[in-house]
Structure formats: structure tokens, C-alpha cells
């Protein structure tokens, strides 16, 4: 009897702990909406999203986040253009062509690449990449969307490579054997059988990499230039949503319009990453079903 009571108590303690964790995580969503929604009493959602001016400290202030949205979009697209070909190629190489010993060496190294703190990338960008971009293209400033894209691209590679590699490795051997039996060589099998079979898994990887690039803060804060205007070229300074929050939150008055507006930007960011995650999840599920 005593034993049973103890067991019950232990179960209750674990239940309490897990409820607490969930409460904290749920709390993030609640706090975001509670602190962000009040701005929509001042400005409509449509105007907030499509407004072309972001002057939160002017009188009267302008809270249009279109330049910030576009800033995020530009650097993310630029990052993908760099990261997808490199990342996916490396994933194919590691799983299809590398010898097991080399594979065992490369995989942890790419994981290490993911472990480099974003502020170090930002630092590297400021002292090396930005001056190089400025000189190479003859630009007035090196801190711009292009430089940010290069760095975000490097940062998105580990995510894309390691998840793609998992997907490609999990394509059943029988697929490849059937292809070899028909006379295809290794390259033909890789391009026509293995990679198409892993396509939805690779898409998951790309979308998760995209999520990482959109949410990245310190790197873009340091190297993107920080101009909250609609970018007219990739060689212009831009400011992303994340950088805006990081740069401006310190100066706001708690409970003021600016404060609420920054939380509203966080809601937009949260929703974007949520959508990315859901799409990635659906693709991953489809991948698993197809392989069965």
C-alpha cells in the first residue's frame, strides 16, 4: 500500500514538472500576443504589414513593417541561393560517395559549423567579409544585404546538409540495387533514383534552413547595415525584423506603442517560423510514407 502511494506521488511530481515546462512554452505564445496585439488598436493589421515607413520614434510615429519584412525576405533568399546548392551537394556526397571513414569525419565537422555562435559569424562578417565585398564590388558600404546573405548562407548550410543527409541515407538499398540491376551506374542511380526518392526529405531540410535564416538575429544586426528602408538592390543596407527587435527594444518604454509594435513584429516572426515548421513537418511525414 505504501509502495503504491509512493508511486502515485512520483507520478504526480513528474506530471507537475511537465505541466510547468509546457506552461512556460505556452507562456511564450500568450505573452507575445498579449504584448503585441495592443498595437492593432492604433493601426490596422493591413497597414502594419504593408506600411512602407518604419519611423517608430517620430511624432506621429509610423509603424509600417514592409521594409523589415522585405529585408528579412531578401537576405533569406540570398542565403538560400548560397546554402541550398552547397548544402545539398555536400549531403549527397557524404551519403552516396564518401568512404565510411571520411563520412565519420565530415559529419561531426559540419555539426561543429552549426555550433559556431552567431555573434562570431557577425564578427567575421564585419572584419573580413564586409571589407572584401566593399572592395570587390566597389561599393560605398560593405555592410549590406549581400554580405548578410553570404553569412546567413554559411550558417544555414549545416542544417540543410545534416537533415538532407539523413533523408538521402534512409532511401532503401533495394531502390538502388534495382537501378544497378538495370545497368545504371552510380551517378545515374544517385541523380535519377536516390535524390528524387529523398526529395521531400531534402525539402524539409531546406525549409528548416530557411527558418534558421529568417530567425537569425545577431549576424544580420551586425552586418546587414541596418537601414529600415525598402531595399532597391542587394548591395544596399537592409534591416530585418529580428535586427529591428534587437536594436530597438532597449530604447522603448515598456507599455508604449513602440514596445507593442516590436512584440507585434515578433508575432509575425513567430507565425512565419510556425508555418515553416508545419510545412517541414508535413513534407517529412510524406517522405516517411513514401518510403514505406
Amino acid at each position, binding site marked *: 500500500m505504501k509502495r503504491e502511494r*509512493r508511486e502515485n506521488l512520483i*507520478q504526480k511530481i*513528474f*506530471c507537475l*514538472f*511537465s505541466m510547468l*515546462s*509546457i506552461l*512556460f*512554452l*505556452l*507562456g*511564450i505564445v500568450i*505573452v*507575445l500576443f498579449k*504584448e503585441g496585439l495592443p498595437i492593432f488598436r492604433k493601426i490596422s493589421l493591413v497597414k502594419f504589414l504593408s506600411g512602407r515607413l518604419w519611423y517608430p520614434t517620430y511624432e506621429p510615429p509610423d509603424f509600417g513593417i514592409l521594409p523589415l519584412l522585405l529585408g528579412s525576405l531578401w537576405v533569406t533568399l540570398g542565403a538560400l541561393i548560397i546554402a541550398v*546548392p*552547397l548544402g545539398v*551537394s*555536400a549531403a549527397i*556526397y557524404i551519403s*552516396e*560517395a564518401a568512404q565510411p571513414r571520411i563520412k565519420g569525419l*565530415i559529419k*561531426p*565537422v*559540419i555539426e*561543429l*559549423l552549426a*555550433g*559556431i*555562435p*552567431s*555573434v*562570431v*559569424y*557577425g*564578427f567575421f562578417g*564585419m*572584419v*573580413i567579409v564586409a571589407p572584401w565585398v566593399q572592395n570587390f564590388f566597389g561599393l560605398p558600404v560593405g555592410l549590406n544585404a549581400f554580405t548578410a546573405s553570404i553569412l546567413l548562407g554559411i550558417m544555414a548550410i549545416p542544417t540543410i546538409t545534416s537533415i538532407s543527409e539523413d533523408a538521402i541515407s534512409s532511401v532503401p538499398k533495394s531502390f538502388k540495387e534495382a537501378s544497378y540491376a538495370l545497368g545504371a*551506374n552510380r551517378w*545515374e542511380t544517385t*541523380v535519377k533514383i536516390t535524390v528524387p526518392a529523398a526529395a521531400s526529405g531534402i525539402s524539409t531540410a531546406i525549409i528548416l534552413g530557411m527558418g*534558421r535564416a*529568417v*530567425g537569425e*538575429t545577431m549576424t544580420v*544586426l*551586425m552586418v546587414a547595415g541596418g537601414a529600415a528602408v525598402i531595399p532597391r538592390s542587394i548591395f544596399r543596407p537592409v534591416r530585418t525584423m*529580428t535586427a529591428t*527587435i*534587437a536594436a530597438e*527594444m532597449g530604447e522603448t518604454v*515598456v507599455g508604449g506603442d513602440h514596445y507593442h509594435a516590436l512584440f507585434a513584429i*515578433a508575432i509575425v516572426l513567430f507565425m512565419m*517560423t510556425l508555418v*515553416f*515548421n508545419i510545412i517541414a*513537418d508535413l513534407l517529412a511525414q510524406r517522405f516517411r510514407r513514401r518510403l514505406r
Partner: protein
Amino acid sequence: MKSRKIKEFVGFAVLRLATIVILSLLFIILCFVTVNGIKVVNWHFLTQMPRDGMTAGGILPAILGTFYLVVCAICFSLPLGVAAAIYLTEYAKQGKLIRVIRIGINNLAGVPSVVFGLFGLAVFVKFFGFGISILSGGLTLGILILPTIIRASEESLLVVPQSFREASLALGATKWQTIRKIVLPNSISGILTGSILGIGRAAGETAPILFTAVTFYTMKLPRSIFREVQALPYHIYALMTEGTHPEAQVPIAYGTALVLLFLVLGIDLIAIIIRNRFRRKKKW
């Protein structure tokens, strides 16, 4: 016939080239930080206070600050995360609700870190009134790594074969005894790996502590967890964007970056080694 062979050769060569490009990028970044940082880093740099408005001296407060923040984060999120994982996999009825919770936790792992910073600001700094302090920043970092720890722990609990649990229960052990003596020992490596990776992540993050814990300029070390601190990642950012003597500040930033990189990659490497070692040892 020959063109097929050439195609194969060229194709794989291109893939190999892409891999080499990625590896050399990592190499370049590491080399650049190491070569420039090693000139600055010495015993004094690691153990002295900054001097002359952050343009000279060491980075002791930043090292200690990061240490305090990480300890605070892990003390908060490790028990909470592991307990939550145990409940979700061992006790809870595997229904729709648990699936929704699991999806929710997964999604939170992808939320940008700056959003966690806003949460920390609104809840710990303002609502609980901890102010800008080690406690606020540590808890914020703790919540940031909570999804990672829950997920890693759950994964390693789930791979323990069901037959292990059944054998233990059949011998008359209670559920808790089974978890403590059978399930946990068999999944500890995964939980450890996840937690160590979490520590590495917490040590390197800047955005979540930006408005919850850090300050650029302090003359003394924090004396309680309700004080603001310096931290390594923020120190790099501040040296590069604030202050008026870049020629004196950039070298210190190199040194700080080397220390941070060494710390974070060292932690990650330990996690990877533990994982690989245990993976080889697994008996089932």
C-alpha cells in the same frame, strides 16, 4: 559508353568540391579567429578586469558572466526538461493531447532566439521584477534550450526497448523502480548529449540575453544573481558596435571571439564524443 563514365566522374567531382568548399569555410573562420585571437589571449587577458573604458585589460567579468548564465540556465531547464520527457514518454497516455504537445515543443525549438528574449523581458525582467540580471537571463536561456532538452531526452527514452521495461515489471519492480534502474541508465547518454549541446547553445547565444541580462561596462564582478553581468557573446557585439576606440577594441574582440569559440566548440565536441562512444557500446 564513355560519356556516361565522364558524366559520373564530373558529377561526383562537383559534389566533392561543394563539400570541400564547406569544410574550408569552417577552416577559414576557425583559422582567422585563432590566428588573430591568439596574439591577444594570455593569462592576464583571461583573469583581469577590463581597464580604460573597455580598451585594455582582460575579460574576466565576461567569462564569469557567461559561466553564471549557463549554470543558471541548466539548473532550471535540465530537471524540468528531463522530468517532462519522462512524464511524456513513460507515464502519459499516448493520445492526441500528447501528440499536440510534442508538435508544440518541436515548433518552439524553431522559434527565433530573439523572440525568447522578448518573452524574458516581459516575464522575468518586468512581470516578476527580477530586473536586468543573471537570474532573468539565465531563466530566458533555460527556456530557450528547454525544447532541445525535452526532445533529446524523449528520443533517447523512446529507443530503450519495450522488452526491457516489461522484464523489469515482470520481476515485480514498480514503475518508478523500472524507470530509475532500467530506463534511465540505458538512455543517459542521449540525455547527456542533448543537455551538453544545450549548454553550448546557451553559452553562445546573444539575442536572448540582450535585454534580460547583459551590460557592456561594469567595473566590478556581480555579487548576486540579481545583478547585471557581462557575457562573452555580448562583449564581442558591444566591442564591435559601441565605444569610440575601434583600434583598441577590435583586438579585444578577436581575443573574446577565440575564447567563446574555444568554449562552445569544446562543449559541442564533448557531446559528440560522448554520443559516438555510447552509440558503439549499445548492446541492442
